[in-house]
């Protein structure tokens, strides 16, 4: 059989396993194994795959994952996230869909202190889901809001996606992060507008919160806000501040944040042995789940490329004509489609090496293109079946929120992301303005 046919069959096999209910990570691993046997033979396949485990295990950047999860878990226990959410609720509760607005705002704040999707989503999900359910929010609105809020984790700097992208594309991470700020804020705005419009049209989808809290007097409001905002602000200062002042690298900053969260919890008198062990237990479960998907994705990608999958994609792109607009459209279209079935690491690893020469040839600004790619990659978190945001949500959501709710709920947010992308396509200055303002030295 031609290697390219095998490359296509890899995806078919992956889907069969995934839809038979086999864990995603195991499906990736097993598919890589079976097709790896084809590519390498029985004597070498074990070494090849264990090499890919080693490759993942050696990535220093991934050591940011457990501390970011710890930070999220412990924040929930400390009551800090709860207070922040209360504050957001207090100020935004009057508006249609107020709780959803509060959730997105809070996600944006959290996203500014962490670089991964899972941590943001899990923290806000655990707090916001019960409250929104209590006030009878529409279930697909709840599910979509949590998933979309989570996806901000890598859209608003710091961002693991940007770091990996920049290292593959040989470009400046700092510039890319700066270029993402305005589009990131635009995406937040698009999410908020969607919620408001939807809840204006159908008020029963996001009813207002009851009056006792809304009618609190100004003094009380101020107190709640201060106690709600100060700890979260301290934590953002600890994480972003330690990066901005050159105290820690973005990876180390995750640990600074985790320790900061522990100290804050202690300051609130909520730190206890059960809290610590429970946090560590949950961290292990979530971290192992994420990392095994990364390992599976790395193996899958490596076998896919050895079988010539890359050549396949390159041929398809080359056959379709090379105008500047067309190149952008096709590249982003491929990423959008790939996002349904691949995780973002695989997308970056498979697509970028094929796209970069095309981009250079068509004289497209690499930073502008990178931001468009990063936005398109955000949709991959939300588009099922391979939708990490939905996986995280499923690990924390009560059973009454169904998979169908989740898939329905994310669709409008994907549209918001695509509109943000359109804005960036039409107004490239959104990505070039801030990097030009960077002082340098």
């Amino acid at each position, binding site marked *: 059989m031609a290697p390219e046919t095998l490359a296509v069959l890899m995806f078919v096999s992956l889907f069969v396993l995934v839809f038979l209910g086999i864990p995603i990570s195991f499906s990736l691993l097993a598919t890589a194994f079976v097709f790896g046997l084809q590519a390498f033979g029985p004597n070498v396949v074990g070494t090849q795959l264990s090499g890919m485990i080693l490759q993942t295990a050696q990535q220093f950047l991934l050591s940011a994952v457990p501390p970011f999860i710890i930070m999220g878990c412990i924040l929930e226990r400390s009551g800090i996230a709860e207070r922040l959410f209360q504050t957001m609720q207090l100020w935004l509760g009057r508006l249609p869909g107020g709780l959803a607005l509060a959730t997105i705002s809070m996600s944006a704040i959290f996203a500014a202190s962490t670089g991964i999707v899972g941590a943001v989503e899990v923290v806000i999900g655990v707090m916001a889901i019960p409250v929104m359910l209590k006030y009878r929010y529409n279930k697909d609105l709840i599910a979509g809001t949590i998933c979309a809020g989570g996806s901000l984790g890598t859209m608003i700097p710091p961002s693991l996606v940007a770091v990996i992208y920049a290292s593959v594309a040989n*470009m400046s991470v700092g510039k890319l992060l700066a270029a993402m700020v305005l589009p990131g804020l635009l995406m937040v705005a698009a999410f908020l507008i969607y919620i408001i419009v939807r809840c204006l049209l159908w008020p029963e989808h996001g009813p207002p919160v009851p009056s006792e809290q809304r009618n609190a007097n100004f003094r009380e409001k101020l107190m709640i806000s201060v106690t709600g905002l100060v700890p979260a602000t301290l934590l953002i200062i600890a994480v972003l501040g330690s990066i901005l002042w050159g105290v820690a*690298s973005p990876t180390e900053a995750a640990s600074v944040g985790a320790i900061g969260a522990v100290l804050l919890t202690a300051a609130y008198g909520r730190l206890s042995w059960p809290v610590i062990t429970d946090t560590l237990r949950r961290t292990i479960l979530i971290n192992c789940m994420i990392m095994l998907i990364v390992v599976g994705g790395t193996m899958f990608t490596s076998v896919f490329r050895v079988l010539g999958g890359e050549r396949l994609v390159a041929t398809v792109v080359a056959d379709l004509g090379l105008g500047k607009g067309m190149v952008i459209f096709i590249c982003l279209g491929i990423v959008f489609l790939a996002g349904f079935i691949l995780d973002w690491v695989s997308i970056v690893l498979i697509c970028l090496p094929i796209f970069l020469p095309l981009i250079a040839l068509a004289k497209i600004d690499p930073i502008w293109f990178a931001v468009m790619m990063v936005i398109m990659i955000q949709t991959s978190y939300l588009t099922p079946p391979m939708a990490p945001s939905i996986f995280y949500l499923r690990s924390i959501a009560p059973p009454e929120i169904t998979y169908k709710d989740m898939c329905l709920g994310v669709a409008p947010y994907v549209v918001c992301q695509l509109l943000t992308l359109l804005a960036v396509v039409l107004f490239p200055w959104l990505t070039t303005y801030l990097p030009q303002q960077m002082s340098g030295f």
Partner: protein
Amino acid sequence: QQQYTFRMATIAPKTAVYNTDISDPFAAHVARLTDGKVKVEVFEGGVLAPIFKIYEAVEDGRADIAVGPPTFLGGQDPTNLIISSFPSGLGVDSLIPWLYLGGGQQMLTQHRREKMKMHSLILGAGPSEIFAHSHKAIRTVEDLKGVKFRTLGNWAAILKDGFGAAPVVVPGSELYGMLEKKGIDAMEYSMPSENKALGYQEVARYIIMPGIHAGAWSFEVVMKMEKWDALPKDIQDKIAVAAKLTTYESLHSIVMKDFAALEELMKGKNEIIILDDTFKNKVKDASRKWAFEAAAKAKTEGNPWPERVAKSVFDFQDRWAKLSPYMVMDHRFNFQ
């Protein structure tokens, strides 16, 4: 007529010079010279093996051949740290003459066959790296004291033990941010073309040259000895010619890329510092001291190779320096 297809493991993305200027042209030359009988399939870094494990990949059979720097084999056998590039080692002018006429390739091949059961050919060479992008002006070796300097390997050891610098370990992807936010004072990464693409000049005032810690470098291509020895003689010869041709070409094509980058860099607002002879000589003394100490230690452990290679490199370098005044060089010592 038998056909051969070799899977080649490399260390870098498709777009990096290590592939565009070394692996890809080599594959093309091999195909052309053998009339398509030998096909080299180039795989990007990380596909066939983690990039630092390309030698292992050849040993295990995941890859038929691998291209990379001997330094990836590490300091266990210091030969690997001295043979392809070394702080204060051979320069852009003397590297290729040493490799092909001074015994470099011969020793490399012999060492690989004896110690690793692999056949090796020099494949690819490149020019000087940038000494440092720095927030601190480094003009004398005293300026190195206490400088948080990102680097790797034996250069880290020399900077620390010889000059009291504080070497920092920072992964490549976090370098820009750490330099920008002054988490580190100075860093070295690669050649002007690579560094400029990554934008380090945007975040640190001083660019310090020349890169005496890596004055010039070479890569090798390795294959299992039994596999190589089983190839027909004419195929072996053609592959060797392809490798040598690629080595000559790559050194100069990378220089051209660096020139283009330097022209841009000099238009910017960075301050360029050119290291003087006093600095260079002190670094040379410290580096050679490190090499001979490592070689002496290896010798007591029954490994004569590091001493042999170090002596060959340093003798050739001294002889080149001594006799080169007769040559007309278009080289200048600063950018004025």
